[in-house]
């Protein structure tokens, strides 16, 4: 009890007195007496503390390392997501520019959509897109990108549409060589699916490499071409006129990269709903 009272008295007096008071002075003396002991203790213990600090730092560094690795992983994922989003943004911007530009065919409404299935094998050059009847898509609607013609819708459900690519063996598009008037039918090349041929071009037509091939969009009475006029198809990459052939054989390199189709535009005649 006496010690408690002494403690309380110490607190009271110490708290009330000035810094030059008796207790403060006594404390300063006490500190100065203790200082050498503290210094000695500090010196003796320094190697142990350094060892402890080193170990603690090592443990901390290990956990920091793990945390930073996780952060790097997360940031890598973020970077990939950002880059993908930027790419997608770029593609969609190009598509929008195309839809709003002068090259866009008159009288058609655009249904921008994504490719949800690539050609399942080299024999069936078909893709599946994420737009269907609910978006106003119908069979035989042409499908394009901002680069050029992709193909035509051959089957449709409420939410998806099957598109036969220009490189499919069953595809045939009436086309003409821009600026020359030479016209014919574009179909898949005999060798592989990466090249097209423009058939049935009379031999007297002058066609040179680099000429642009576009859809001709013909109309004959009540019948019209499935494709609107003026959609780019490809560039002439080879011309062959053999004596035994009736027509000039023109090799066409398509403008569309069919191997990396992500976003396409279905051209519908009606007023489609949003995909």
């Amino acid at each position, binding site marked *: 009890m006496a010690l408690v009272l002494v*403690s309380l008295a110490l*607190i009271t007096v110490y708290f009330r007195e000035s810094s030059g008071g008796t207790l403060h002075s006594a404390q300063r003396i006490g*500190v100065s007496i203790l200082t050498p002991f503290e210094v*000695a203790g*500090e010196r003796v*213990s320094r190697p142990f503390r350094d060892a402890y600090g080193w170990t603690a730092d090592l443990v901390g560094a290990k956990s920091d390392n793990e945390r930073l690795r996780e952060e790097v992983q997360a940031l890598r994922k973020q970077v990939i997501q950002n880059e993908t989003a930027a790419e997608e943004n770029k593609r969609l911007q190009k598509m929008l520019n195309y839809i709003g530009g002068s090259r866009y065919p008159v009288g058609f409404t655009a249904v921008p959509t994504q490719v949800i299935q690539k050609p399942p094998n080299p024999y069936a050059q078909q893709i599946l897109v994420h737009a269907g009847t609910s978006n106003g898509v119908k069979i035989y609607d042409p499908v394009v990108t901002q680069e050029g013609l992709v193909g035509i819708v051959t089957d449709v459900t409420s939410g998806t549409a099957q598109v036969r690519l220009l490189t499919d063996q069953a595809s045939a598009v009436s086309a003409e060589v821009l600026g020359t008037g030479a016209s014919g039918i574009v179909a898949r090349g005999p060798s592989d699916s990466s090249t097209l041929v423009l058939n049935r071009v009379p031999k007297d037509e002058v066609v040179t490499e680099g000429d642009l091939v576009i859809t001709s969009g013909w109309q004959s009475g009540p019948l019209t071409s499935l494709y609107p006029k003026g959609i780019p198809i490809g560039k002439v990459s080879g011309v062959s006129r053999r004596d035994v052939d009736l027509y000039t054989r023109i090799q066409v390199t398509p403008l569309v990269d069919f191997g990396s189709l992500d976003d396409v535009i279905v051209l519908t005649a009606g007023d489609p709903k949003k995909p």
Partner: protein
Amino acid sequence: MTAADVFKAPGLLLLAALLQVSVLWTIEVSNGHPDLLLVLVVVLALVRGPLLGSVAGFSAGLFLDVATFSTLGISSLLLTLVGYWSGRLGSIMSKSSPHPPLLAVGLATIAVALGSAFLHFVLGSTVGASELLGRVLLPTLVLNLLLAYPVHRLVCRLFPRTTRAAREVIVPG
């Protein structure tokens, strides 16, 4: 309390106090430090009763207040009370609890932390409850509990049980 205790206890306390201010305060886990002096006071009180406990607590507290330039009396008041009550607790727990040092040290650590917060609050300096409980009290409690058994063993070796006390334990009730 024996005559030998009068010499051994201050020596042990002084050693522990020097170790506390020079070494143990540099060991920081979160914001908590191992409090060897508190553990020693509690264990001394458990082994030798409330009188030695309160005297040891007062001395240790005064030493700490001086060494740390703190308000004189705060640590001595808290450690005096802790020493006294640990001594009282020791006489009860030695018969009922299998782990008297752990329980006493745990209770003392909590009591000193809360008491210190209260006294500092009364004197005008405060600390956030979450800071006190989470970052100071909890790590200090764990560190003190780790010290409890080794210190108890050391003290039991240095301060062997007196014949009277031993008889009291052997023939309870």
